[in-house]
């Protein structure tokens, strides 16, 4: 037996021994990939982190931490549009989280377009902040509690002769008003955060046209990261609107729905 054959045999035996001694390989779970993405982010490897978080998203999870982390990685990579898109998605899932709101504000401050919402100041902004902190789910739960409190009061007063005293009547009115207010707030919050279809511009520069077709005139230009409301969809085109009243049509590929 030549030396070469002997060496080959020895290597094969070593490989077998190694294979027997090693633990069986375990399939990588989405959680493992998520953790790996977090580690890569901590090491400043933004591209690897973003790739890992995107891979986990493909499993179909709807976890706000996943959207938030992916948005962070995209922002670090300089991808403003995807970053704002995923921050918005994270905010839908966890509207009360302050880090999401803070990072989203930082990301928006880097956007070229300054889109001022007239209602984003003063008492309206304060109410919206409170609504976001409680969230649509929290407000729905409060409405449910209000309805049951209302039912209990009506039952109590109705089952006793003279149950509807002045005190109970005022209490009933207050609970009705509070529950109605909560209901309206819940519906408004739900509509604002979830109900209104919105999209984020992903291309560096997108012309908003007067109609759904390239042969239409350009009305204004949107830039990466700008969030728009979707008013209509038609054959690969989105009719978008800005808070200042401007409306136009952009190609569906230029913006992604939140």
């Amino acid at each position: 037996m030549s030396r070469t054959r002997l060496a080959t045999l020895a290597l094969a035996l070593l490989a077998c021994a190694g294979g027997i001694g090693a633990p069986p390989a375990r399939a990588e779970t989405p959680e493992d990939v998520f953790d790996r993405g977090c580690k890569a982010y901590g090491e400043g490897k933004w591209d690897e982190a973003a790739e890992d978080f995107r891979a986990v998203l493909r499993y179909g999870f709807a976890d706000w931490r996943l959207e938030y982390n992916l948005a962070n990685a995209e922002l670090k990579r300089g991808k403003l549009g995807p970053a704002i898109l995923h921050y918005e998605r994270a905010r839908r899932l966890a509207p009360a989280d302050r880090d999401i709101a803070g990072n989203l504000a930082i990301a928006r401050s880097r956007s070229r377009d300054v889109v001022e919402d007239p209602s984003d100041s003063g008492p309206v902004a304060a109410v919206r902040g409170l609504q976001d902190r409680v969230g649509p789910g929290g407000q729905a739960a409060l409405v449910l509690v209000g309805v049951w409190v209302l039912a209990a009061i009506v039952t109590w007063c109705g089952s006793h002769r003279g149950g509807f005293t002045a005190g109970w009547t005022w209490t009933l009115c207050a609970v009705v008003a509070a529950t109605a207010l909560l209901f309206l707030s819940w519906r408004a919050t739900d509509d604002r955060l979830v109900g209104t279809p919105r999209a984020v511009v992903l291309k560096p520069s997108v012309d908003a046209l007067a109609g759904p077709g390239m042969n239409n005139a350009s009305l204004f230009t949107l830039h990466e990261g700008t969030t728009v409301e979707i008013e209509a969809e038609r054959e690969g085109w989105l009719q978008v609107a800005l808070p200042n009243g401007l409306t136009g049509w952009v190609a569906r590929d230029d913006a992604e729905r939140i």
Partner: protein
Amino acid sequence: MRRLALFGAGLLAAWATGPIRAADEFRVTASVYPLGRITDTTEIRLVLSIEGSSMPEVSSLNLPPMKNLHVISGPANSRQSQMSWVNGAISSSNSLSMTYGLAAEGPGPAEIPAFDVQVGGTHYRTSPLRFTVEAGGGAPPPGAQGHGARGRAPQPQSGDDGIDVFLETHAGAATAWVGQPVLVETTLYTSVATPHFDWIDDPTFKGAWTESLAVDSNREAARVEKGGRQYMAFPVSRKVVVPTAPGAIAIPQATALVQVQRPSRDRFGMLFGLEPLVNLQRKTSPLTITARPLPEAGKPPDFDGTVGSYRISATADRKQAEVGDAIALRVTVEGLGSLQAAKPPRLPSIPDAKFYDPKIVENASTGANHLSSRKTWEWVVVPLSPGSLDLPAASFSYFDTESGTYREARADLPTVAVVRGAAVPDTGVARGEVQQNLRDIAFVKPRSGPLREPVPPLSRRAWFLALLVLPVAAVPVGIWAGRRRERLLTDSGFARGRRAARAAMKRLERAERRAADAAVFHEEIAGSLVDYVADRANRSAAGLKYDELDAILAGGGVPQALRSRYHRCLETCDFARFTPDAGRDGARADVLREARGILKALEESW
């Protein structure tokens, strides 16, 4: 006795008639004292005397503008009343003296014009007063003496006071640069005791700003010899004069009021301090300081106008520090001159360190002819990152009065080694709101559990909708249940009726358990039937007869056949109760079955 009565009557008559008679009899005179020689250092007194039989009341008095005179004090009022008995007649006189202190503005003629005095509603007019003011304690023209300028009355004046007291003003330099402080000191020389000294006027300087320094006359007093005579020298004023513009700066005369004890030949009086007190006026001599302009050549761009002779030193309180530590950086400038308006030395900013506004400590002291100043600026420097912190050299530009050129004083600072600390310490030196250096996004969120699958929102879950709708049905049920419960609690007839069937059935069960005893068995059966009807009708069961029971059942709409069955069952039970052998086991079972059937039928038909 008669004389005494006459005296009293006369006194009363004098009191009664006196005011009426003397109501418009006043004599108003104005006089100037002293009556002899008046100099411009003499305290002049204007005495307005109003005499009358009653006490005068002056309602208005305004002194007119006077020639070569001005009021320095007063009026001081003095009242006197006198009553006399002459040849059996009583007369009274009253006088009011108003004394003004006047000061002469200089040698020459002086005049107090005639002026009106309103006494008791009547106007009186004084006579004009004219006299000549002679030169008294004024100083001769200023003359340079030694290092600075000096002006005084070299000889004690004679005449009205003749007391050897004079003021001497001395300037630290006759010539100074613009911005160079000059010390101007005034000393009172006296050969007699001076219990009181006060400035009458404090003239302002033009072309210079001044600052008065504290003077302790008694502590700084010294015995000196001048012109072969012994004096006590009291420093009474010390000022720093800083020329602000080139040219001659006039230091005008200032007038002081000096109270002295006039020397007396009366040894007894001298022994017991009984010499009279005399108020004298003394004036300083005018001085002139010449201010030279600063040269434009070689003026540093950061020159802030500080003139003098200075040196600079700089220290840091440590050579090693942690990130976030507060390092105290002290730069001290000291020397001859005024640093009051001096700006902080230049300290170039460096990256990775935060400089806070400096704290300033300043003090000044005076020498024989100069002003010494010392000013310290203390910065708090906080290193922001680890490494070697090279603190910049501090520099300070000034105009050197000795060489007549601009100079720059520099002081190097040590290098501080900065290490990363374990924790942010409490500096305890400089406090302030924490400022954000950089705004960046928050870090990624770690996973605290399994990742979440998509779930419908709360408002779209079935249980949520069910819970939201359930009260619509639950409320009527709850109201019905509540009302029924309330009726059961409050309406005993309703409650008995609702419980009648259950109670009757329980009694039948008890009868079944006690079937061995025929009497007890049949009594329980009959009792259950009677109690049932009594409960339903809310009547007492005791004493109910067959016809009454039948009437109740008929009133409840029970058919005749059922009423007959009820009647027969009761009769069977009553018969069996009193016939011990009646009713075997099989017959008792039939009775029990019949009773249950009757109760069930009654429940259905009533």
